[in-house]
């Protein structure tokens, strides 16, 4: 068991720190949360900067245009960029972490050449069209239909919870191509242009008041058959490749950010003269144990992935269950620290507290995650 950087890792970290220190002061001001064109421009400009110095697609395989970095180097990248306060992956999230890796793993040479370089350069933004009003946790029951018409599919249906839909160029779309087959076997994965005729996006307002995601209505949208990745009706398997990527290193930056928030909360308690409150002190102390352990669990999972040749294990579900709960507890503690100011949306952490309510739901609810842990890791029988 070794937690120290190797010589190579130390050098990688040092070079990255040096570069971040040089470029971050020159970045423009962050756009407001509802300024979508501004957010797209900001996120893609950052991606372009990463691309120009060779940090884009760090964890992607070399033959897909990536750097073929080890999982540990990717961990260091996410850790250091968050520590330095660099921009988050933002609008590039689906392209870099879902659609891109899926195309890299399952796409043809032509598809890889067409779609991967623009993702790495920050030229094109992807969104995800998976969930539907009647297909949430039971994603495989999705009903959006794709009917063959010559060398096109004609797609009709409705998608929901689509982040960055307003600014995306492409959508990784799951559609039903064989309604007669068992539900997992009649699904295909398509790349759909967001400006295609028949695509209507309607933003959804979250409980935090912002428009983080959207509904998407598809009315006889024509998608070329050549935009299907993987075989027809093999989309479920193709998608599972994507989802396992999401649970690898997806939360590294967030754990680092939580630990910084926790220190800031302790400083705020000292500043406001409430450090003599043992309940508050012990609450923060307990959260310190929690986030230190979650950081170590991240390193454990990454080292495991590194040993298995980059394949993320089921440890991601264990991590997500604990992390999502801990993060909600963190902002509950923040509300305790803020006291009467906890009702002021302009105070730091108040909006974060609202946003954190999604963590036990998005990317697999905690209940589904517990099923995964119980059935796939512990080997308990499938049930209802």
């Amino acid at each position, binding site marked *: *068991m*070794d*937690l*120290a*950087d*190797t010589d190579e*890792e130390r050098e990688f970290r040092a070079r990255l720190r040096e570069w971040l220190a040089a470029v971050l002061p020159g970045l423009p001001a962050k756009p407001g949360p509802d300024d979508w064109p501004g957010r797209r421009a900001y996120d893609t400009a950052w991606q372009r900067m990463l691309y120009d110095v060779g940090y884009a697609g760090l964890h992607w395989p070399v033959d897909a245009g990536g750097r073929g970095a080890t999982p*540990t180097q990717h*961990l260091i990248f996410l850790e250091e960029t968050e520590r330095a306060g660099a921009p988050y992956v933002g609008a590039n999230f689906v392209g870099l972490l879902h659609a891109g890796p899926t195309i890299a793993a399952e796409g043809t040479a032509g598809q890889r050449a067409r779609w991967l370089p623009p993702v790495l350069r920050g030229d094109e933004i992807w969104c995800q069209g998976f969930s539907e009003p009647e297909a949430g946790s039971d994603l495989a029951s999705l009903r959006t239909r794709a009917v063959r018409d010559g060398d096109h599919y004609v797609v009709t249906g409705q998608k929901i919870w689509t982040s960055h839909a307003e600014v995306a160029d492409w959508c990784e779309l799951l559609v039903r191509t064989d309604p007669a087959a068992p539900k997992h076997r009649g699904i295909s994965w398509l790349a759909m242009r967001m400006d295609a005729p028949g695509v209507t996006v309607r933003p959804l307002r979250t409980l935090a008041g912002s428009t983080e995601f959207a509904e998407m209505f598809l009315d006889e949208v024509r998608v070329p058959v050549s935009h299907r990745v993987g075989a027809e009706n093999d989309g479920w398997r193709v998608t599972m490749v994507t989802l396992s990527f999401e649970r690898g290193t997806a939360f590294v930056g967030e754990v680092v950010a939580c630990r910084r928030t*926790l*220190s*800031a*909360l*302790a*400083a705020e308690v*000292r500043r406001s003269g409430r*450090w003599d409150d*043992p309940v508050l*002190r*012990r609450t*923060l*102390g*307990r959260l*310190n*144990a*929690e986030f*230190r*352990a*979650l950081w*170590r*669990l991240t*390193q*454990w999972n*990454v*080292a*495991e992935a*590194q*040993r298995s040749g980059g394949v993320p294990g089921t*440890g991601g579900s*264990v991590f997500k*269950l*604990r992390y999502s709960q801990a993060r909600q507890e963190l902002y509950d503690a923040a509300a305790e620290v803020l006291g009467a100011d906890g009702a002021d949306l302009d105070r730091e952490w108040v909006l974060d507290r609202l946003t954190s309510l999604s963590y036990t739901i998005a990317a697999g609810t905690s*209940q589904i*995650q*517990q*099923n995964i*842990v*119980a*059935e796939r*890791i*512990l*080997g*308990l*029988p*499938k*049930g*209802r």
Partner: protein
Amino acid sequence: MDFQLSDDQRALRAGMRELLTGRFGRDRMRAALDAGVAVDRGMWGELGAAGFFALRLAEADGGVGLGLPESVLLFEEAGRVLLPGPLAATHLAAGAVGAVKGAADGGAVVAVLDEGRPVAHLEAADALIALGPVRPGGVARVLEGDVLRELVRTARPVRSLDPLTPLHRVTAGVEDGVPLPGATPLRLEGALLAAAEQLGSAARTTEMAVQHAREREQFGSPIGAFQAVKHLCAQMLVRAEVARTAVYAAAVTADPAEIAGAKLLADEAAVHNARDCLQVHGGMGFTWEADVHLHLKRAWLRAGEWLRAAEAEEALAADLCRVHACDAGDL
């Protein structure tokens, strides 16, 4: 970074599991329980011969020369099988050269006295380490011979919650004895080793619950097919795995705050998992015959030893403060 067990560490763990399966399987454990004999001198010697106590003693001093990471792997195995006796105290005494004769080879049993707490395995002890107060600078002492005998004579037996951990209340003062420098590392290392035992217990009760949930049928299917039961089991695994990485990392870094976190989370995992395991076992869980209660009782006891939740949380709060350079010194 390679935060996974090395091949040597896996082999060490496998060796200890094999030794304990052969020497302290369930039948032996239940026999010890029925006989009311917690510390078996023969087995203590075998543990000593296997390097359990001298693991971190330098090879030049006759030890094995390994570190805390290897120690926590052995203590995790001990926790899995409910191995009784003052394992951590004897291991710590063995690591301090010449502190207690015979501790390293399992010839001596060393118990621990923590101010205000009952002493475990006092009557079996050849020596007693009296821990200093939690704050730094407190000096630990070693009590042996007449001093120890006098202390035992005036001690009052407690009807112990855990049948394999006899307890005594000590009334005599402990100013006597030979000072042992560095009480804080002793307390912290003891806390980490206890945390490793808690981890082993938490992992074991998870396995017991899962096994029962697979075999026990009600309403025409294994109860593990029902989400209410399934989710209890999943949360048990989460607690055990979070505690595992906390304990292993603390063993690698030996950082005081990290050790405090490991003890806090491992205590929680052991206690909560034993309770959930009991719940999954239904009526059987409430019987003397099932082993679940033994895990819970031991976990409760260990949670009160070396570093308790309140102390750990205070240490972790003070650690947050250090990051922002406010007044430390709370611990």
